[in-house]
């Protein structure tokens, strides 16, 4: 990135003996929507807290807008924060909550009033301005928190699992709302979540965290289609991991022998030495059933389970001791357990991941 807006440079954070974030380098562009995704305890909140100024890095530097900010107190960082459980002030009304940042900046009363009105309209809460947070539903509280974090036009908005407490339908609605605000207001958003589909649908880029380190960072499609490690492949979506030995390598295509003896063709950018052991990731929806692909890999397998999922079927098939999950649409001719099926996938759908 040639002109990052936020830059974390070799940032580490330890609590006593426990190192939570280790040598983190991360650049975030202006107007970018970046998601921090990872399992519980991987240090996502800690990174956000360091950006917001509630925690100090043990070592390393944080830059924002060309200034070093890691010794700046939180109230001078001008970053909007949306907390996981909203952190609305219970003794203030909705409009007082939203007006709080402007009051702290000693803006004239008339301007505060006008901007609060606009902000509440933006999140469609104009009619609830005089309610207390305790009189609002979860989604409404969420939107108040959002309006409050945006009203002072911060350069960066940090969100820590802001949708975690909402039910599925509301969560999807709010995802769209936030994405819409991001586009309209050209916000820079750092969004922490451990919901992978949320990260995939909302972000410009996703950083996958594992034990305080970035495992992979990139566009959602890159992460999904080309996971670089086994952890990422398993964490994002669902995948089949298959181990094999490289037989030969021609151009960008490797011939890999599976334990049972079948050979598959794998497209890969890295040069794999002969006889090296590799781990392959094959997405379940890329495997076709009952069709031979002349240009691809073909395997015969026996159906060992069929699970109905409404919009799709999930087959579990076994082929020479290797169990594969296949997602298939329902237009398939009826299958039953024990049937022998033909499975095929392209060499480009077969991806080498680091263990």
């Amino acid at each position, binding site marked *: 990135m040639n002109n990052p807006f936020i830059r974390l440079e070799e940032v580490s954070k330890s609590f006593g003996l426990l190192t939570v974030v280790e040598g983190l380098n991360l650049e975030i562009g202006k107007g970018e929507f970046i998601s921090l995704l990872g399992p519980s305890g991987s240090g996502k909140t800690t990174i956000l807290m360091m950006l917001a100024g509630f925690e100090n890095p043990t070592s390393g530097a944080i830059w924002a807008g060309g200034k070093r900010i890691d010794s700046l107190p939180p*109230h001078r960082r001008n970053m909007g924060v949306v907390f996981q459980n909203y952190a609305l002030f219970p003794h203030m009304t909705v409009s007082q909550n939203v007006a709080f940042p402007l009051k702290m900046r000693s803006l004239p009363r008339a301007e505060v009033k006008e901007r609060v009105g606009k902000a509440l309209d933006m999140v469609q809460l104009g009619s609830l301005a005089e309610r207390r947070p305790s009189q609002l539903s979860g989604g409404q509280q969420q939107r108040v928190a959002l309006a409050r974090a945006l009203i002072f036009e911060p350069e960066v908005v940090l969100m820590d699992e802001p949708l975690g407490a909402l039910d599925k339908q509301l969560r999807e609605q709010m995802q769209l709302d936030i994405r819409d605000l991001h586009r309209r207001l050209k916000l820079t958003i750092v969004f922490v979540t451990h919901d992978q589909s949320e990260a995939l649908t909302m972000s410009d880029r996703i950083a996958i965290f594992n034990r305080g380190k970035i495992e992979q960072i990139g566009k959602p499609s890159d992460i999904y289609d080309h996971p670089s490690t086994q952890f990422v492949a398993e964490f994002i979506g669902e995948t089949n991991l298959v181990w094999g030995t490289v037989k030969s390598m021609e151009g960008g295509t490797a011939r890999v022998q599976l334990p049972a003896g079948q050979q598959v063709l794998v497209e890969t950018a890295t040069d794999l030495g002969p006889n090296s052991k590799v781990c392959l990731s094959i997405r379940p929806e890329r495997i076709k059933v009952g069709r031979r692909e002349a240009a691809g890999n073909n395997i015969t397998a026996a159906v060992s389970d069929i699970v109905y999922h409404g919009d799709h079927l999930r087959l579990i098939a076994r082929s020479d001791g290797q169990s594969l999950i296949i997602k298939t649409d329902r237009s398939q001719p009826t299958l039953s357990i024990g049937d022998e099926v033909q499975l095929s996938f392209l060499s480009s759908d077969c991806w080498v991941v680091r263990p």
Partner: protein
Amino acid sequence: MNAPRLSKQVISLALVAPLLLFLIVFFALPLVTMMKSAVSDPVAARTLPATARSVSSWNRTSPPTVEMQAAFVADLRQISDDQLFGDLVRRLNSAKSGFRTLMPKTRKAALDTAGSIDLVALDKRWGDISYWQAVSVAASSKITDRNLLAAVDLQRDASGAIASVPADASANKAIMLRTFVMALTVTGACVLIGFPFAMIAASVDGWKRQLLLGAVLLPLWTSLLVRTAAWFILLQDRGLINSVLMQSGVTSSPIPLIFNRAGVIIAMTHVLLPFMVLPIFSVLIGIPKNLMPAAASLGAHPVRAFLNVLLPLGLRGVVSGSLLVFMSALGYYITPALIGGAKDQMISSVIAYYATGAANWGMAGALGLVLLAATMILYAIYLRLSSERETSP
């Protein structure tokens, strides 16, 4: 009502019965007795027993009977105590003026002559039926407002109207005021010390929190005498505080800290601090942890975040703590008695004086009643305020 429910109610009644009984016998009954003694007025009934008996059959409109007059004269002859007679005259005079001169005249005549006396001949006022009505009411009634009035430095003058007592005889109002001022001072001191302390205690956890709370609870666990001895050691002229102050050159002569107001305030603040810290603490730990970070992220300087978020939310604890401390402080007796001088005694010691020293249960009861009323009014205000806060949108 079906049987299981009934038996359940019987069981719960049985469970609360001991407490109920205890409260009735050792709290409600003494309280009622106290209040009764504050308003009971047996002086006329006590000094005029025969009259009381004979007026019971009088219809209060016909002229006084001969037996009534004879009984009255007989009662007057029985009164040997001048003080008591004075009380009786005051009592009668407060109902109808004129008794002040009439009564000594009549008593003198009764003592000077044996046998029956024609009262109307002695003084024609005895022919006026309204005097007999006053005697009849006083002799057969046992209630007075004298003690209650005296408790707030008021009395009935000769005409029966309420007036304040002469300045040299009035002390109760001043002591009551002093009591309120001292209780208020202690409450203020407790808030000033207790709020920051509760904030610290709520912000740490584990053994640190236990230690802090233990330190504030300590005065409740130590015996009063041990505590008092400790204050003596600390506060006396050659005590710890004064010797440190003098050695460090802050003062050249010891600051009097004991047997005066300052000592009482210090000691009472110490004892009552837990009742301030604990309610504030329990309110503060109920406040979500992320509100202060949220305020900071929204641009609030820590001081403004405190004033705008933590303080208003913690105020409920401050109010209930203040109420507890203030009400307990109002009734303090032993600490001022041990640590204070004569000018630092609170209303409780006056009550104690009347109750045990002067055996004037009427005054003791009346002062207690006034204190109780003042406390209840404050409590009602508190309830009103707190319920308003909860229902306001």
